[in-house]
Structures are given as C-alpha cells and as structure tokens.
C-alpha cells in the first residue's frame, strides 16, 4: 500500500511541475509589459523598472519561474495588475463560492446517478432501463449552460422560485446562500449525473455477468442480495475513476456556469482577468484549479487501493 501511494505521489509531483512549466511558459509568450500597462504611457523608465522589480518581472526566466512557484508554495500568489490587491486574497474570497458549488454539484450528481444506474442495471431491458438510458442520452448531449438558461427562464423568471443570478453571500445565512447555488449546481450536475449513471449501469452489468456472482447465486443468494453484497463493490472501480475525472469537468464547467448566473466565483475571476489582461491572476487561478484536479485524482487512485485490494499487490 505504501509503495503504491509513493509511486502515485511521484507521478503527482511530476504532473504539477510539468503543469506549472506549461502555464508559466504560456503566459510568458504573451507580449506586453504589465508594468507599462499599470503605470500608463507617461511613466518614466525609472519608475517602470522599480515596479518591475517589485512585481518580480526583472531577472531571468528561471528566476521568475522560481519566484512564482516559490511564492505559491508560501501562499503568495503575487499582486493583481489591475486591482493591486494580493491574488491570494482574491482567490480566497471566491473559493468560498466555487468550491461549495463544485461539491454541491458532485453530491447531486452522485445522488442521482447511483440509484438511477443501479436501478437500470437491476432491471435490464425493462421500461425503467430504457427510460434511464434515454434520459441520460439527452443529459449527455445537452450543453449545460443552455440548460442553465432554460432553468433561469422557468424557475427564476416565470415561477420566481429562485433569483436569476448573483450570490446571496454566506453572511445572509446558509440557506439563502445554498439557494443561490441550487440552479447552478443542478446545471452542472445534470451532464455529470448522466455520464455517471451510464457508467454505473454498464459496470454493474459487467460485474453481474462474472463467475463469482453465479457462485453467489448458486450459494442461494437472491439476485438482489448478490447485487448489493458482491456486485456493487466490484463495480465501483470504473465509477470512482469517472467521479475523479468529473471533478475536473466540474471545475471547468463551473467557469462557464458561474458566468451564466453571475456568481462571483473563481470562474468569473478568470474571465474578468482575461478581459483585463491581468495574466498573473489567470496564471495563478489556473494553476490552483489544476492543483485541485491533480489532488483529487490522486485521492481517487488511493481510493482504488482501498476498494480493490488486488491493486495494492500489483503496484
């Protein structure tokens, strides 16, 4: 188990290093001098140089990269070119919207997908199965931002159950805050739940065809008992993989959905920074999201080993 975890840890570190290099390189190729941008056209070369020093823009490529990564490791994400505030603060504020949103969506997606997938698999070929497959086929094909717009039209504009956008703030209480995250979370969760339900179904069907299930049935277990006691746990591996991968889709999807609902989360921050050419913010937020995704996938890899003891040995 320890060796397996160590091996995964090494590949995690490599992923993060490569990602940071790629992100850094991409921002480096962008023409333009942030210092000149911040001080305007009347700035003297002296003040420009002073500001560049302050922003850590002077120095070799390697120094700047080391400065950026070193800063992030200490929790210092640099200073926004446009707002002149520490990027870490900006991220901190907005994380409290994006992270709950992603978790809310992930919970919803799992809560829908598990029963739907298990139900469909246990009644293969029935009307239930066909309906679940049909609905999920639609769920996979629907663009989630469009689905979000339709929900706004129905539940916010026509029925007035929800606000069309914006965030109540956690100060207003948990419930109002969760309420403003509800439609965005549903929009994010729908395609993910559809994919997950399909994976759950097919994985469970595969497992139900295995010899050990036949053995369990021969031993006298009912179909239902065999499914819950033996098949489900074995069918979970591909499902876990997909949940891990979905986290990255949720983070990325949140960027677009936050824009539909005008939620001041990380996604809005990325967009505002892109239009303001505030690349230090873009760079840091993207790196943070990539970090989150890589960590989640690492956790999933470890979860495999818990679910499937064979993996511990094989590694």
């Amino acid at each position, binding site marked *: 188990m320890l060796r397996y975890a160590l091996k995964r840890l090494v590949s995690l570190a*490599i992923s993060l290093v490569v990602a940071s290099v790629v*992100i850094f390189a991409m921002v480096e190729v*962008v023409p333009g001098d942030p210092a000149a941008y911040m001080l305007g056209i009347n700035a003297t070369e002296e003040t420009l140089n002073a500001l560049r020093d302050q922003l850590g823009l002077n120095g070799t490529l390697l120094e700047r990269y080391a400065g950026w990564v070193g800063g992030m490791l200490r929790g210092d994400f640099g200073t926004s070119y446009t707002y002149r505030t520490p990027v870490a603060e900006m991220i901190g504020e907005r994380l409290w919207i994006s992270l709950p949103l992603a978790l809310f969506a992930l919970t919803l997606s799992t809560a829908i997908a598990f029963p739907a997938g298990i139900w469909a698999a246990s009644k293969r070929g029935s009307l239930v199965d066909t309906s679940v497959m049909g609905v999920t086929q639609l769920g996979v094909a629907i663009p989630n931002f469009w689905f979000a717009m339709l929900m706004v*039209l129905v539940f916010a504009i026509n029925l007035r159950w929800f606000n069309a956008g914006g965030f109540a703030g956690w100060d207003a209480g948990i419930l109002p805050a969760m309420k403003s995250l509800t439609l965005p979370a549903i929009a994010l969760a729908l395609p993910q739940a559809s994919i997950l339900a399909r994976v759950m179904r097919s994985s469970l069907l595969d497992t139900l065809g295995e010899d050990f299930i036949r053995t369990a049935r021969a031993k006298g277990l009912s179909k239902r008992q065999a499914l819950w006691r033996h098949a489900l746990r074995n069918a979970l591996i591909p499902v876990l993989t997909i949940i891990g991968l979905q986290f*990255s*889709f949720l*983070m990325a999807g949140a960027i677009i959905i936050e824009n539909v609902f005008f939620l001041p989360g990380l996604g809005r921050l990325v967009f505002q920074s892109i239009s303001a050419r505030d690349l230090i913010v873009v760079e840091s937020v*993207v790196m943070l999201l990539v970090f989150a995704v890589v960590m989640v996938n690492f956790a999933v890899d470890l979860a495999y080993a818990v679910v499937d003891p064979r993996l511990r040995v094989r590694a």
Partner: protein
Amino acid sequence: MSLTEESLARAALRSRNLMLGAALTLIFAGAALISFLWVPYDITQLDIANKIKGPSGAHPLGTDHFGRDILSMIMVGARTSIAVALVAVGIGMGLGVPLGLAAAAKTGSLLDEVIMRGNDLVFAFPSLLIAIMITAVFGASALNAIIAIGIFNIPVFARLVRGAALSLWTRDYVLAARVSGKGAARISVEHILPNVTNLLIVQGTIQFSLGILAEAGLSYVGLGAQPPLPSWGRMLADSQTMISFAPHMALFPGLAILLTVLGLNLMGDGLRDLLDPRLRRGAR
C-alpha cells in the same frame, strides 16, 4: 456486395440508434452544406424593423435583436461548429494515431513511456480550463478554439490506438509479417492500422460531438468564433439578456446543439454495436 457487407448493411438499417443518429447528423451537416449555396436570408443584412420577432411564416424560427433570421444564423453557425469540431478531431487523430502506433510497436521503451506519461498529463487537466487559458493568451478566435480542443483529442486517440494495437501485435499474421522481414513501421501501417479503423470511427464520432459541445461553450463565453462569424454558442450568449421576452432566441440555437450532439452520440453508439462483432452477437 459480399455476403458480410450485405448483412452489415442490413444490421445497420435495423439499428434504431444508428438510423436516428445518422438522420440527425445528416440534417445538420446538410444544413451547413446548403448554407454555402443558399440561406433563407442574408445574415449580414440587419433588419431592425423586424427585430426580435417570434416564429412566423416569413421567419420559421423568428429573428434576433438585429432582425437577422435565426434559421439562417443556425445554418451558417452549423458550419462553424462542424468545422471546428471536425478539424479538432483531425488534429487528434493525425497526431494521436501515429503516437499510439509507435508506442505499441516499441512497448516498454522510453518512447512508449514518454508518450503514455505525456498522455496521462494531458488527461489529468481540465480540458476546458486549458482551452480557456490558450484562447486567453493567444486571443479568442475559431482557430485557437480548434487548437485548444484538438490538443485534448491527441491523448484520447493515442491511448485508444495503443491499447488496441498491443493486442494486435500478438496475432499470428503480425508474426508472419515480421518473419517475412517487414519492419515495425510497415507492420503498423499495413496490418495494425486497418484493424483499428473501426475503433477510430466510433471514437471519432464521440470526440466530434464533444468538440461541438466544447466549441459551443467557448463561443458562449466569447472565446470561440468572433463576430461576424455566427456560431451557436455566440447566439446563446447574445440571447441571454433577452431571454425573458425573446425565449425563441435562446431555444433554437440550444436545440441545434442538443440535437447535433445527440445525433452524433447515437450514431457513435450504433456504430460501436455494429462494428464490434462481439457486441453484435451479445445483443441478440
């Protein structure tokens, strides 16, 4: 037509998924092609007097806030969506397939290791996030959207081809080819590649539909095709502030995306069932 081709064709006609999917795909591909020759209204002409009109005889899907005909916009927008997704799949296949073949031919080698680890890396990152970053840095355009989506197609195809090729390399006919003195590259092209085309067709269809969704998302947030080039995502973005009094502006472009993606997915499923004989027998 040989016997097997005939039974394949018959099976294809019997597959509801495949037929429905192919029909939907053909409708939108057809609309895109027809738009090169003819559209109901010129979409570069603004007609403010007729702005934001619901569906009518003159404008079956209504008009937008500039009085442009939405049906015409959707037809021309189909070109953008299809072109972006198609080229992105082309990039993925063009680079991913050779990489996958090379990795399988030299399995366990440094080349294999580098290719596969590189693939893992690209896989681990949220593609849309990096696509947003690419378009942010290099500027928003249809071309950059293609590149951004295409990059993430490379590992998909590389991994698929490598996996399939690995098992093919153990076959007797490959051994025979080796004995007759053919090199790894020649065997890959002459014997491995033809046997993975089925897989490529199926995966290509799926990546195509994902590409259409990704393009729509990127242009919705303003990072894809730029005006005046119409695109479905852009139309949805334009419609958002007017959704309370002009829901038709949001409804039809969204339906176009949904039906195209649905069509491609159904076609992909149908093709997989059809082209994988193992599944075909299992289904009966």
